[in-house]
């Protein structure tokens, strides 16, 4: 039972950066903008998050620095794609290249430094409940924050007028514009939200996961976050399933190896990707079927004045 608890704790930690970044990207894409720069925003968030925490000694300051860095980088993307109507795919890819380089530059000064990892919560009474206590009340705050964020996004998208307008901008920007909604401003906020979440997801790595900064430490998690949005068919609920499923299979395959079950490790390493694809395909088949992508995703919008 102790092992099970340890596994679940590892899964929560492994899934959190993916969930944070993917939630932001989901909102961005729902507004009709495809930002492929998630990896770049995450790694810059990691570098700045670590820098902030290292200089101030505070995880909270680090998290704020990560969020700010991701947002700033997303503003470059917004300027290019919304302001100058440049191709979104090319700009997003360039943003990742920029971010990877920039993070190395920012992080050069503190490679090899250590910080105290984000504290784990301890609520007297609740955290000490056997089995579920540490899982529900004993992880670092980011884990619960990421879940609250998804719930918040779900409420916003499906239960508020603003959310409805954002989805309208993503499905048909011409109509939304004709109805008098400020499409570009909506998209700007969505892109910034995506940047903030990616920055926070990136910052989670050096602040809580492995408390040091190394260039390239996101190791492709931004791309996985992007893929999760597609697999979740742009729905927040499925995003949680996807992220935790991916995290669970990632951790379980490591444990299966340590038990030496004799399954080739190459297959085990591919398993998280395989399992995520299969399960999410099954879910989307069973419910609605067909494409659920925002209709205007990735298209440039220039309002006629």
């Amino acid at each position, binding site marked *: 039972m102790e*092992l099970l608890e*340890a*596994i679940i704790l*590892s899964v929560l930690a*492994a899934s959190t*950066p993916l969930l944070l970044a993917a939630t932001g990207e989901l909102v961005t894409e729902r507004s009709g903008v495809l930002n492929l720069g998630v*990896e770049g925003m995450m790694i810059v968030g990691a570098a700045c998050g670590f820098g902030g925490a290292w200089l101030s000694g505070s995880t909270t300051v680090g998290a704020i620095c990560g969020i700010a860095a991701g947002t700033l980088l997303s503003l470059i993307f917004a300027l290019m794609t919304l302001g100058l109507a440049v191709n979104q795919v090319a700009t997003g*890819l360039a943003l*990742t*290249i920029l971010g*990877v*380089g920039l993070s*190395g530059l920012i*992080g*050069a000064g503190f*490679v*090899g430094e*250590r910080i105290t*990892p984000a504290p784990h919560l301890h609520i007297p009474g609740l955290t000490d409940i056997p089995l579920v206590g540490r899982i529900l009340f004993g992880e670092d705050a980011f884990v619960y924050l990421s879940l609250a964020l998804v719930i918040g996004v779900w409420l916003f998208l499906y239960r508020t007028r603003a959310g409805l307008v954002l989805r309208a901008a993503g499905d048909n920007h011409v109509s939304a514009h004709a109805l008098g909604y400020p499409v570009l401003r909506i998209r700007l906020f969505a892109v910034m939200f995506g940047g903030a979440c990616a920055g926070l997801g990136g910052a989670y*790595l050096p602040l809580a*996961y*492995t*408390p*040091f900064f*190394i*260039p*390239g*430490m996101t*190791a*492709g*998690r931004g*791309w996985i976050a992007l893929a999760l949005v597609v697999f979740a068919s742009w729905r927040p609920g499925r995003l949680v399933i996807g992220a935790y499923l991916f995290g669970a299979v*990632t*951790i379980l395959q*490591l*444990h299966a*190896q*340590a*038990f*030496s079950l*004799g399954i*080739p*490790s*190459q297959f*085990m*390493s591919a398993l998280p990707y395989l399992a995520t694809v299969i399960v999410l395909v099954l879910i989307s088949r069973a419910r609605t079927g067909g494409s659920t992508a925002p209709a205007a995703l990735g298209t440039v919008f220039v309002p006629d004045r």
Partner: protein
Amino acid sequence: MRKILIAATAVMIAAAASLSGASAADKLKVGFIYLGPVGDFGWTYQHEVARQALVKEFGDKIETTYLENVSEGPDAERSIEQLVRAGNKLIFTTSFGYMDPTLKVAKKYPDVHFEHATGFKSDKNMGIYNGRFYEGRYIQGIIAGKMSKAGVLGYIASFPIPEVIMGINATILGAQTVNPNIKVKIIWANTWFDPGKEADAAKALLDQGADVIMQHTDSPAAMQIASERGKLAFGQDSEMIKFGPKTQLTSIIDNWAPYYIDRVKAELDGKWTTDNVWGGLKSKMVVMAPYTNMPDDVKKMAMDTEAAIIAGKLFPFKCPIVDQTGKTVECKGGDHLDDGQVLGMNFYVKGIDDKIPGK
């Protein structure tokens, strides 16, 4: 997608390098291909340290360029060729997976000299160099065997290639000399560098009862997890004691600088010829970090073993070597396995309850 990006980055860096290099035609240009980022604090970092030693040694006589984050595979060939086109005359390709790409480019450009790390294919303009890291692993095995209370070691491996398998075997052979019942749990990360995954692997090994962690991946993540849990670990490739002052027992440090200086000197003197160097503790290509966080008797044991290996009195793969199936391995090197057998090692020794992936 990532590969395209990395290739694009590499091409841009190479293009920039070729532009800036046009004015310095008389300098010897030396190029490097790195697997990870120079700040990985492991494998690539040590090559970068050696490159900086070159710059310090030769100053204005040479000009060095490096491409980092070059993935093993088709991208490597393009990157190596970019370095050739940029005018580099001596090129170090610093990972096993660059072997075939390097050979291909070497055949195409017979005037350029190549040095490939840790492989087994060479040519008249392509030399090989490698460290006998297994000597250090054997010492670590002895320390681990002594220090593990549970009698279970956790081993984070990268890819099932002979280099990694010989390291696992050397560790177990060393550990068996002090604890015949030692067990090892092995996790293949299938990557050289992913701090998050390395940390996850370390957590999984500790959760399953291992209390000494060893790794053949490049970041200090595992060391840091062991430190958090109050367990012990070995560093990898470089000094990692910063990440676990009360955790690191020792670390195998790759010391490439003397070799690089030697080869660049030969190139400058016009005396470069192809070679095949496999240097160990004796030639100081492999160096052990200070033995820390262990009692004096274990420390002495480690130092005595190191001295015996340097003196040529002790061979980690001394015969008889018995494989997992109980079969005694043919002994081609007299009283120990010969280099060819070690370099092509594709079996586990007796005492490892696991299977090599894909076998």
